[in-house]
């Protein structure tokens, strides 16, 4: 597979000329507009709700409340937790009426929906709804939620603890710890953040009475999973749910689920017989789009006299918010459990997890989905151990890398790592970052009054194993003989229309322009995974290659017939079927055109494959400079050397790394969702209070690669979509710790805001 460096993507033209079609851009004739009344308190009983005054407002057609949600039966959200917990238990799932009934459990929860002739009329009527609450005590932290005297959020989830899980071998770990020469301990917290893709959520629902079906336009990460989730929630059969999914303005995990608003709109569309449109505002989004991360991890590492890892033990407390999202629990358990050993050979491993509900916005997968969290815990702990034992950080890592001859490596918990060269990535990164020259740079910075630090992480990820056992791709020809590839992935910026089309085009030996990719198209009978977990190229993308190969085989008999040859006399090369040792030939596209009138087109093929996790890995290194007077940090450089297997398009890979690293920088240096502990009010409810990274936060990233082709898919690729996030949290934190350690600042958790850093420095000085 040859590499492409071309930057110009097929999707660019419509996007740079304003002809993208995002959900809010769609309108249907006769549509009404919905606006949601949201809870303004974190935990309360709904004593009474009277919508009649709102109904009297101009333009208002209907108002829906929790009673309507309960009557429709829209109260049970799908959950993707696929394994059993401690003692064979299954996860306790709270009910979640799509409009709150009886109780509200987080600020922002949907309580009522006004439907009116215009969005403004709907908004105008919101404050006419009379609602009386009886406030209840609030728990917005895991600590408060688990406290004996804490408030109970759901009747069926005692103590707000919905799941406990463990993995590994506790006895072996205990034994190793008992005899270890040294034990290092570190507690870390990955802060709760808001994914904040730039496109606010939106949904347009139309009900077709004749067919008792729904047409739904919304933001998504893939049609198959979304359709299933809608069906589970509403009980509407999948064949009655038609999705129209077009451009998506970023997703990062926040778009993969069905949301309560969309189902509420279905109720309205059916009752009123007119389409219902809703576009979220950003402020609404802060209190209703799924949040990310929010895991507290207590790690312990047992080492022998020579700094070899004997065992590791982690306790995870996962804050899931007030209700379970489909992806939150499973991703925050499976990914850390799979990657707990990191890139290290650790004979004994044990992890225990608690999944806790709090009076906050529900948490779902967010770029990395537990991988950045475990990488953070592991790499901070390794650095911590290196510091305590006075063993140089890269040396301690080298001593413990899983060596090249140990692959495939079965980890002590779950997962089998494929061939990796951790030392190779490390060596390359150290060179690219001029690790050796750091001491000089630190001295020069000190002369300028700055504290300079360098940090590294060596990490591995499991790209998404897939919710569905196989990915299918269809290649079809139309009436003009033009070729379209259909997948059930859905790009929200990853460039599939360019890369997947190029994969097919290259395999077929035809110009890229001859292939068009369409994703998540309604009416295609295809199964497969959504775009998430860095698996689209690995899954859908590799099946694109298989589909193209299958097409060649499938077309050969027809080509042979056309050329009046035996199929055994026909070869395929450079886009055409050719007579072996002769002059006869027919181009594939010509053959397709010739048969274009037939239905179905004889060359249509569908291919499929079961593609599980691949194991992207790498070494990232960051240098930072802190101004001690203000606590402000400047990122001086960032090097990312990743093994993403075979790279199909360098430009796209770089873009993914850029984006992921800057999201990591955002989280490390200032993003944080903050709730007031007493009232449960959301204090970071807009971009005025939630610090998004801006241009200049990171001037450049040196993106290098050290590829070992994967044997686990036809492209030899490993996923890269989340690597930037997964590696950067620990990389930046290790750099900051390195800068602050000489001052005697102990471990500091994210975010490293100027105020926090300054205080840490002052406190260290005072000692």
């Amino acid at each position, binding site marked *: 597979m040859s590499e492409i460096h071309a*930057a*110009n*993507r097929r*999707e*660019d*033209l*419509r*996007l*740079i*000329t*304003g*002809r*993208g*079609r*995002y959900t*809010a*851009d769609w309108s249907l004739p006769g549509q009404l507009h919905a606006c949601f009344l949201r809870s303004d308190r974190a935990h309360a009983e709904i004593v009474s709700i009277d919508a009649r005054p709102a109904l009297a407002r101009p333009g208002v057609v209907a108002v829906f409340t929790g009673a309507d949600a309960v009557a429709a039966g829209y109260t049970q959200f799908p959950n993707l937790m696929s394994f059993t917990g401690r003692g064979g238990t299954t996860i306790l799932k709270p009910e979640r009426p799509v409009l709150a009934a009886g109780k509200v459990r987080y600020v922002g929860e949907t309580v009522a929906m006004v439907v009116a002739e215009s969005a*403004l009329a709907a908004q105008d009527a919101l404050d006419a709804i009379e609602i009386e609450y009886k406030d209840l005590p609030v728990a917005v932290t895991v600590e408060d939620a688990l406290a004996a005297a804490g408030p109970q959020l759901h009747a069926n989830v005692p103590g707000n603890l919905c799941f406990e899980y463990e993995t590994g071998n506790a006895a072996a770990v205990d034994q190793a710890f008992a005899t270890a020469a040294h034990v290092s301990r570190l507690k870390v917290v990955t802060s709760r953040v808001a*994914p*904040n*893709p*730039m*496109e*606010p959520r939106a949904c347009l629902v139309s009900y077709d009475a004749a067919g008792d079906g729904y047409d739904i336009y919304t933001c998504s990460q893939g049609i198959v999973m979304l359709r299933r989730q809608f069906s589970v929630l509403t009980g509407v059969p999948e064949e009655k749910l038609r999705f129209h999914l077009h*451009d*998506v*303005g*970023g997703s990062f995990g926040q778009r993969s689920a069905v949301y309560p608003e969309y189902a509420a709109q279905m109720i309205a569309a059916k009752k009123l017989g007119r389409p219902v449109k809703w*576009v979220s*505002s*950003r*402020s609404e989004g802060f209190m209703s789009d799924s949040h990310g991360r929010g895991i507290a991890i207590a790690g312990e590492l047992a080492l022998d006299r020579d700094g070899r890892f004997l065992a590791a033990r982690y306790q995870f407390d996962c804050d899931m918010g007030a209700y379970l999202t489909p992806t939150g629990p499973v991703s925050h358990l499976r990914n850390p459990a799979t990657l707990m050993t990191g890139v290290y050979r650790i004979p004994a491993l044990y992890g225990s997890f608690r999944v806790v509900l709090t009076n906050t916005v529900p948490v779902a997968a967010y770029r990395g989905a537990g991988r950045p969290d475990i990488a953070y815990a592991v790499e901070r702990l390794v650095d911590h151990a290196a510091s305590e034992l006075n063993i140089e950080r890269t040396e301690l890592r080298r001593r413990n890398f899983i060596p090249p001859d140990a692959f495939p490596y079965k980890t002590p918990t779950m997962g089998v790592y494929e061939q990796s060269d951790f030392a190779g990535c490390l060596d390359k990164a150290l060179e690219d970052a001029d690790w050796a020259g750091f001491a000089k740079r630190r001295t020069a910075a000190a002369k300028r009054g700055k504290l300079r630090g360098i940090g590294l992480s060596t990490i591995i990820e499991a790209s998404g194993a897939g919710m569905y056992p196989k990915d299918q791709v269809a290649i079809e020809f139309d009436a003009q003989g033009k070729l379209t590839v259909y997948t059930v992935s859905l790009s*929200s*910026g*990853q*460039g599939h229309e360019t890369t997947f089309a190029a994969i097919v085009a290259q395999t077929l030996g035809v110009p890229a322009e001859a292939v068009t990719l369409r994703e998540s198209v309604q009416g295609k009978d295809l199964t497969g995974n959504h775009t998430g977990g860095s698996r689209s190229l690995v899954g859908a993308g590799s099946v694109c290659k298989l589909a193209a190969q299958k097409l060649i085989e499938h077309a050969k008999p027809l080509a042979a017939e056309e050329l009046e040859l035996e199929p055994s006399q026909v070869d395929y090369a450079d886009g055409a079927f050719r007579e072996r040792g002769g002059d006869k030939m027919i181009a594939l596209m010509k053959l397709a055109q010739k048969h274009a009138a037939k239905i179905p087109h004889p060359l249509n093929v569908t291919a499929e494959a079961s593609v599980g996790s691949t194991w992207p890995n790498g070494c990232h290194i960051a240098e930072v400079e802190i101004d001690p007077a203000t606590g402000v940090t400047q990122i001086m450089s960032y090097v990312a050397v990743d093994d993403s297997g075979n790279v199909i398009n360098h*430009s*796209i890979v*770089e*873009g993914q790394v*850029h*984006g*992921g*690293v*800057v*999201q990591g920088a955002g989280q490390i240096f200032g993003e944080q969702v903050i709730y007031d502990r007493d009232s449960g009010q959301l204090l970071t409810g*807009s*971009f*005025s209070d939630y610090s*998004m*990274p*801006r*241009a*200049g*936060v*990171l*001037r*450049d*990233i040196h993106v290098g690669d050290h590829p070992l082709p994967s044997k686990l898919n036809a492209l030899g690729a490993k996923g890269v979509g989340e690597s*930037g996030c997964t590696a950067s949290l620990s990389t930046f934190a290790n750099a900051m710790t390195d800068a602050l350690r000489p001052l005697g600042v102990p471990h500091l958790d994210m975010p490293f805001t100027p105020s926090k850093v300054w205080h840490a420095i002052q406190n260290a000085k005072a000692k």
Partner: protein
Amino acid sequence: MTKIELTVNGTKHTCEVEDRTLLVDLLRDQLGLTGTHVGCDTSQCGCCTVHVNGRAIKSCTLLAVQATGADVVTIEGMSRGGKLHPVQQAFTDCHGLQCGFCTPGMIMAVAALLKDNPHPSEAEIHHGLEGNLCRCTGYINIVKAVKRSAEAMK
């Protein structure tokens, strides 16, 4: 309802608006120019940036009635006769967009920046992009696109 007249991408329009109608809503809902996007409600993200009388403005923070008589250019008006504006070309050449949602506003802001400052330093580029958020690209390729645009527009 108030009647206003304004020119958008070279075409004169007469529209009826509520006084509280925002320019962005007029552009998107009444004129069907959905290339201008709404990304926030605190006037920070810049996705709604358009040119009003030659200056980059956040159309979510301007009333349509305030734009009466104005000359408005949106992303749809940036290419002429099927030919891309150099800034548009630079964005695709430099992979300066991924999901594309912030891109129209970003392109409008960059075009205006380069009009005021045809040869910005990197620091000036960062300063000039403070009104535009992007979640996908990490900005690195956007800055490259600005530099490329400046070169192309010399």
